[in-house]
C-alpha cells in the first residue's frame, strides 16, 4: 500500500463505522438487518438489536492484523465462507484488514513493511487475529517467517494490540500441532501472551459466523463474556448435545450402532459411535454450516469435539466419550495375580495360626 493510500485510509479510520456506512450509502434498514443477524447469532434478545446497532455505529473502524502461524489455512477458508456477515461486508463495512499474507496481493518484504506500518499507525488500538499454533521448542525454530520465529512475531504484534482474537483450535489451545507427542512444543496464544485481552474462537475450523460475529460483537461492546477456556459464551454457552436435533433419540434410548445400520438410516443418536456432543461447546447445532444448510451430525457423523482443548488426544474418534484412555498391557492381570497370591499367603498364615492356637487348646484340655 502506498504512503498516500495509507494516509487516506488512516483518515477514514478516524471515522466511525456509522459515518463510513453513511458515506457508502448503506441504509438504516440494511444496517439494522445486519445487526439483527449478529444479535440473533449471539442469542441476544431482539430488544438488544437497537442498542447493539447504536454501539456499532459509534465504534471506530479498527485496524486488523491477521497473523498466521503453524496453521493449515482452514480457518481462513472457513472465514471467507461466512454468510452473516460475509467477509466482504466485514472488511468493507466493519474492519480494515491491513495484513493477511494469504489474502493480500503484497508478498515478502513489501507485506512485512505494510504490517509494520499498519501496526505503528494503530499502535495500542488494532485487533490482532492469530491463526495456528505457536511452536516453542528449541526457541521456536520450528516456525518462522521473514527471519523471525513465530514466538517473536507474536510477542511483537501482541504488544501493540488492543485485543487478540485466536481463531481456530490451534491458535486457541495448540490443536493438532500440540497433539501427542507435540514434537514442536506447540501452544496456543493464551499460553504465551498474558497481558492482553484474548478471545478464543476455537474449532477445526471455527464456524465462520462465530468468527465474524465475535469480531463485530467486540467492536460494538468490547470483550464479550467468556467461559473458562476464553470462548465467547454467546456462541459456546451450550453443548452440541443440548441443542442437537437427535437429542430426543438419546433420551428415548435409540442409538445407531454402526454407520450403516437401521438406526443410522433413521437418524438416531450417534453417541455410541463416539459423538462428542455431550462435552463439546459450540454453535454448530444451531447456526449450522454453509449458510445454515447442514452440519456434521445432520450429515450422519458424530461431533469430533473440535472446539475443545486437546480434542485430538481424547481417544479414538469412534469410541464413546466415556471410553477408557489407556491401553492395558497386562497390568490388571498382574494385579489379579498379585491379589490371588497375597490372598493365598494370608490364608496359609491364618490357617497356621489357627492350627497353633487349636493345638495349644487341645494340649491344655488333655493336661
Amino acid at each position, binding site marked *: 500500500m502506498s504512503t498516500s493510500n495509507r494516509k487516506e485510509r488512516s483518515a477514514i479510520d478516524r471515522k466511525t463505522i456509522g459515518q463510513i456506512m453513511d458515506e457508502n450509502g448503506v441504509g438504516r434498514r440494511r444496517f439494522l438487518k445486519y445487526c439483527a443477524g449478529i444479535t440473533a447469532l449471539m442469542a441476544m434478545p431482539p430488544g438488544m438489536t437497537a442498542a447493539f446497532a447504536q454501539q456499532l455505529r459509534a465504534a471506530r473502524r479498527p485496524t486488523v492484523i491477521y497473523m498466521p502461524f503453524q496453521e493449515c489455512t482452514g480457518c481462513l477458508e472457513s472465514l471467507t465462507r461466512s454468510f452473516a456477515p460475509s467477509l466482504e461486508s466485514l472488511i468493507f463495512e466493519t474492519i480494515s484488514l491491513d495484513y493477511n499474507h494469504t489474502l493480500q496481493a503484497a508478498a515478502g518484504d513489501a507485506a512485512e513493511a505494510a504490517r509494520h506500518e499498519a501496526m505503528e499507525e494503530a499502535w495500542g488500538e488494532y485487533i490482532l487475529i492469530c491463526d495456528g499454533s505457536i511452536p516453542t521448542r528449541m526457541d521456536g525454530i520450528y516456525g518462522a517467517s521473514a527471519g523471525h520465529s513465530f514466538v517473536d512475531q507474536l510477542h511483537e504484534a501482541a504488544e501493540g494490540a488492543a485485543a487478540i482474537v485466536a481463531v481456530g483450535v490451534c491458535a486457541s489451545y495448540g490443536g493438532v500441532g500440540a497433539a501427542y507427542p507435540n514434537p514442536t512444543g506447540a501452544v496456543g496464544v493464551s499460553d504465551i501472551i498474558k497481558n492482553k485481552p484474548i478471545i478464543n474462537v476455537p474449532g477445526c475450523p471455527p464456524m465462520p459466523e462465530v468468527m465474524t460475529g465475535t469480531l463485530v460483537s467486540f467492536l460494538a461492546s468490547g470483550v464479550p463474556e467468556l*467461559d*473458562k477456556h476464553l470462548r465467547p459464551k454467546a456462541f459456546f454457552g451450550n*453443548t452440541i448435545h*443440548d441443542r442437537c436435533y437427535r437429542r430426543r433419540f*438419546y*433420551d*428415548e*434410548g435409540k*442409538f445407531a*450402532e454402526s454407520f450403516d445400520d437401521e438406526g443410522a438410516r433413521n437418524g438416531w443418536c450417534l*453417541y*455410541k459411535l463416539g459423538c462428542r456432543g*455431550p*462435552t463439546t461447546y459450540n454453535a454448530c447445532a444451531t447456526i449450522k454450516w454453509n449458510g445454515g444448510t447442514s452440519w456434521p451430525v445432520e450429515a450422519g457423523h458424530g461431533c469430533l469435539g473440535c472446539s*475443545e*482443548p*486437546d480434542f485430538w*488426544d*481424547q*481417544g479414538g474418534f469412534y*469410541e*464413546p466419550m*466415556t*471410553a*477408557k*484412555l*489407556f491401553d*492395558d498391557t497386562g*497390568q*490388571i492381570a*498382574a*494385579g*489379579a495375580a*498379585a*491379589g*490371588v497370591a*497375597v*490372598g*493365598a499367603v*494370608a*490364608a*496359609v498364615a*491364618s*490357617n497356621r495360626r489357627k492350627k497353633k492356637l487349636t493345638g495349644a487348646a487341645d494340649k491344655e484340655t488333655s493336661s
Partner: protein
Amino acid sequence: MTLLEFARGPMLHFALIVFVFGVLWRLVSVALLGWRKNRAESRVSTAKAATGGAVAVGNRSWPHPEFLNRTAFGEAVGYGYHIGLFAIVLFGTPHVVFWGNLFGIGVSWWPTLPTGLITVISIATIFLMLIATIRRYMHAPLRRISNFDDWFSLAILWVLMVSGVWAVLGLGGSKETILAIHIISFNVLLIWFPFGKLMHAFYIFPSRFITGYKHEKKGAAS
C-alpha cells in the same frame, strides 16, 4: 492433561488394578481359610444341605417376621436405593457404553432405559439415600455401629450420584468437569471397595449360603 482425561486415563487404570487386586486378595484369603472340622453327624445329604443354603439366601434377604414392624422401613429404603443403583448402572446408556468399552464387548444386545426414566430413578434413588443417611445418623444403635467406613462409603456414593444427575440435567458448570468428578468418584469407589464394607457385594450371598448349608447339615433351622 485435562481432569477428564486424567479420570478416564491413568486414574481409572490405577483404580481398576487396585480393585482387582484387592477383591481377589480378600476373596481368596477367605476362600482358602478352610472348613472347621465338623464333629457332628450329617443329618442330610450334601444336595439337601445345598438346597438349604439356597433357601437361606432368600430367607435372610427378607425381614424376619418377628421383627417386620421394626425393620421393614429401613429394609425398604435399603432395597429401594440398591435397586435404583443397579438399574442406573446396568441400564443407563452412558454406563452400558462404558462397560462395553471397558470389557471390550459389543453392547448392541444390551437393553438400555430411556434417559427420562433413568433420571426419575436417579432422583428417587438420591431421595432414598437421603433417608438412609439421615436414618443412619438419627437411629441411635445404627449410629453407634457406624464408623468411618460407613460414612466414607456413603460420601463417595453421594458424590457419584449427584454428579451423575448434575451432568445429565445440565444444572450448571462445565459438563466435562462434572463428568470428570463423576468418573473420579467412581474411581475412588473402585479403590476403596475391597478394603471396606462395600465388599459385602461379594460376600453377602456366599456367606448366607454357607450359613444355611451348615445349619441344614446339622439339622438346625436357618
